[in-house]
């Protein structure tokens, strides 16, 4: 007697499916064969056992995030799906080259913006776009950040369209989070499916904390001694606090809050039981706005008074540098392909999603007429906030966004609704297709290093395109296979 197939009711719909090709006759792609066979044979009780194991492991280990403005569950686990996403090496190396090209171009752009502004003078990017970006920091003009790098840690979001082409959705060049989930997901998968994992030659990801530490130490202004690196967190109530402690622990560095640091004579010290200890490099998980109440938001209790002064005098390094947000402004994003051509004289390996800039009169007219068929995004928001998905919106929501766009055209962009690729995922009705994206983590120290794969985020709600954890998204482990 054969067991009922887990995939017997599975359909790919009109989407690109990561695991299967063909929409009538399902056929698992070559690099998914083993996963398909393993999960097809699973019994319902095996599934629920492993799920429970994974969920309680997350909860007990405190691998949680905080949802703002949600009274009931302030701490939640990031839902985890057991079916891994698989990427063949051949595909991954293309993605990797594309990401490398992109981060280099973005850093050249940031350097240019805060120095000679050649790209503006040459008419590639309008000056007002840069100057009006919320995260542009005039304080950085003329300043040379340590080792000339601005964005050391970047989490670029990738999606795949209905043909399976990889597209860049956004560049997170400020404080991208998610690396800790990626590392924990891997640990859980290795425990839940040891044989399947062992048989597939999956590229390991565990080097991330070491590589991150190397990237940070490379920035130290004091070369004579072992650099003192710290991770600066907004504190225990921040949504990503688990990640902060996780990474600090993995790197063996102190996790500090603003009140643990003090600026004296343009140097930064941490307060220890043995007195003050000078700090060389700060991996800050705090937005520019909150870093230094003397320079930015005065009411910020999270930062350190005098930090910017110490930074600008070169006595302490910050990763990422101040002012990188101008590169992940969604309007600037639209120009990245042109930056790549301009600075590197290369064609972009990874394409952007076509983007309408509402501050352009012709684009705006098009956007306002086609709101139903577009995704509208605020240029400087993240986490899936400030977003309109045209075909899932109400008339009132569209009118609201139309008003916002007319009032602040610079602050909005629109993109066609990309039908994100789908991936088989455990849902209430059994295994079904859910939309996914991919956030790889790119480190730019002495070299550019990219962790194989990244965090696959999945929109667990049926039909939803929003994968953010704050909006009901979950995650999967991502396996890059050496042999394919």
């Amino acid at each position: 007697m054969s067991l009922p197939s887990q995939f017997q009711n599975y359909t790919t719909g009109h989407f690109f499916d990561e695991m299967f090709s063909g929409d009538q006759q399902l056929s698992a792609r070559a690099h998914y064969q083993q996963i398909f066979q393993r999960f097809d044979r699973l019994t319902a009780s095996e599934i629920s056992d492993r799920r429970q194991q994974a969920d309680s492991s997350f909860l007990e280990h405190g691998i949680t995030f905080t949802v703002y403005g949600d009274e009931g569950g302030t701490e939640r686990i990031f839902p985890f799906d057991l079916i891994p996403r698989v990427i063949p090496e051949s595909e991954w190396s293309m993605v990797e080259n594309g990401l490398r090209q992109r981060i280099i171009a973005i850093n050249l752009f940031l350097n240019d913006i805060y120095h000679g502004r050649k790209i503006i003078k040459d008419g590639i990017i309008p000056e007002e776009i840069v100057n009006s970006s919320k995260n542009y920091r005039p304080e950085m003009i003329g300043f040379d950040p340590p080792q000339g790098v601005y964005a050391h840690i970047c989490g670029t979001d990738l999606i795949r369209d209905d043909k399976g082409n990889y597209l860049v959705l956004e560049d997170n060049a400020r404080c991208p989070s998610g690396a800790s989930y990626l590392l924990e997901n891997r640990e859980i998968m290795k425990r839940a499916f040891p044989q399947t994992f062992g048989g597939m030659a999956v590229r390991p990801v565990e080097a991330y904390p070491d590589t991150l530490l190397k990237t940070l130490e490379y920035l130290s202004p004091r070369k004579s001694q072992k650099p003192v690196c710290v991770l600066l967190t907004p504190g225990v109530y921040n949504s990503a606090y688990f990640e902060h402690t996780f990474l600090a622990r993995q790197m063996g560095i102190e996790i500090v809050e603003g009140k643990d640091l003090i600026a004296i004579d343009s140097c930064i010290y941490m307060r220890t039981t043995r007195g003050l200890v000078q700090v060389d490099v700060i991996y800050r998980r705090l937005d520019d706005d909150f870093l230094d109440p003397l320079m930015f938001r005065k009411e910020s209790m999270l930062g350190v008074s005098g930090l910017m002064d110490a930074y600008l005098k070169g006595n302490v390094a910050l990763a990422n540098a101040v002012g990188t947000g101008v590169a992940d402004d969604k309007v600037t994003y639209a120009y990245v392909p042109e930056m790549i051509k301009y600075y590197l004289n290369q064609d972009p390996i990874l394409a952007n999603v076509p983007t309408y800039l509402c501050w352009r009169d012709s684009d705006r007219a098009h956007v306002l007429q086609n709101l139903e068929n577009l995704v509208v995004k605020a240029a400087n928001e993240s986490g899936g906030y400030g977003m309109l998905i045209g075909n899932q919106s109400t008339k009132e929501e569209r009118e609201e966004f139309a008003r916002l766009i007319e009032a602040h055209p610079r602050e909005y962009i629109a993109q066609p609704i990309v039908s994100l690729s789908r991936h088989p995922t455990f849902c209430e009705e059994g295994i079904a297709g859910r939309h996914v994206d991919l956030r790889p983590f790119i480190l730019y120290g002495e070299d550019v290093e990219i962790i194989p794969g990244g965090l696959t985020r999945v929109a667990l709600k049926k039909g939803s395109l929003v994968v953010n954890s704050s909006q009901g998204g979950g995650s999967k482990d991502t396996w890059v296979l050496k042999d394919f």
Partner: protein
Amino acid sequence: MLSRVADNLYWMSRYIERADGMARMIQVHQSQALEYAQNDQQLEEFWQPVLQSICAESVHPAEQGFRKIGKTLLFSSSFANSIFSSISIARENARMVRDQLSEELWLELNNIYLFFHNGDADQLYKQGSDLLLDRITRFSLVFQGLADATIPHSEGWRFLSLGKYLERADQTSRMLDTLNLRTKEPTRADLMSVLRCCIALSAFRQQFRGNLSLKNVANFLLFSEDFPRSIRFCIRAIDHSLHAISGVPTGTFSNEAERLTGSTLAMVNFTDWNQVVAKGLHQTLDELQTTLIEIGQRVFETYVLLPSEIKSLGERSSAQLAQAQQQQ
């Protein structure tokens, strides 16, 4: 070690010890009340001195009167020293210093928190409050064992010890003080309860062969050389931890916390029952408690505050700051 981290470890440890002491206190007194206090008035007379000794007079039990006092002391979220509050505060402190704790230690603490948080503790309480209280004291013992067995005995661990023994000394003194606060002469049952609260019954019997009197009980809990919950033992442990942290030899001092602890230890070492009687047991305990609070403040000033911050604070506001820390 970061000053804030030292502070978090210290408070985490204190609150776990506090939850542990509270659990035993509830258990012992509930059991005593079964036999000696039946109606509402007797219950009130029985519980009031206990509540007074732990500064919880303001905890008004619900309509059922003192019959449900145990539940209030266990679960109340408005009472900062209820067991659930203590565990929540301990976990909150632990969350801020997870990099300092072993995974096992964190799991243990997080599990007991989740156990309360998801309502399982309520369920267990309904089956029998002793089951729940046992579980809490067991948790505390496992936690202490793990702290000793899985984390390096370096500076952070010393702050854990410091918090544990300061809290323990305070609790022993408060349990002993309930005997003074009762309107009648302490009964045999009262004396037994105090010993039970300090898990001291069998150790006491070994030393005094069942010669149960106020003098013997107080002598034991104040001055026992080697019983790990006696005040003398705890103060010696505090002294030891402080010197291990600073590296200064015992018998000398490098800060106020050390000086105060050393002089208190000398006082306890060289005091006997006659002096306690001359001063009054309540007065003796009261002064000890005040000193313990001050030691806590001086530790905070020495290791957490910067010299400039202490200077800019007056005596009172410094005390307030320490107070604010205790209540978190």
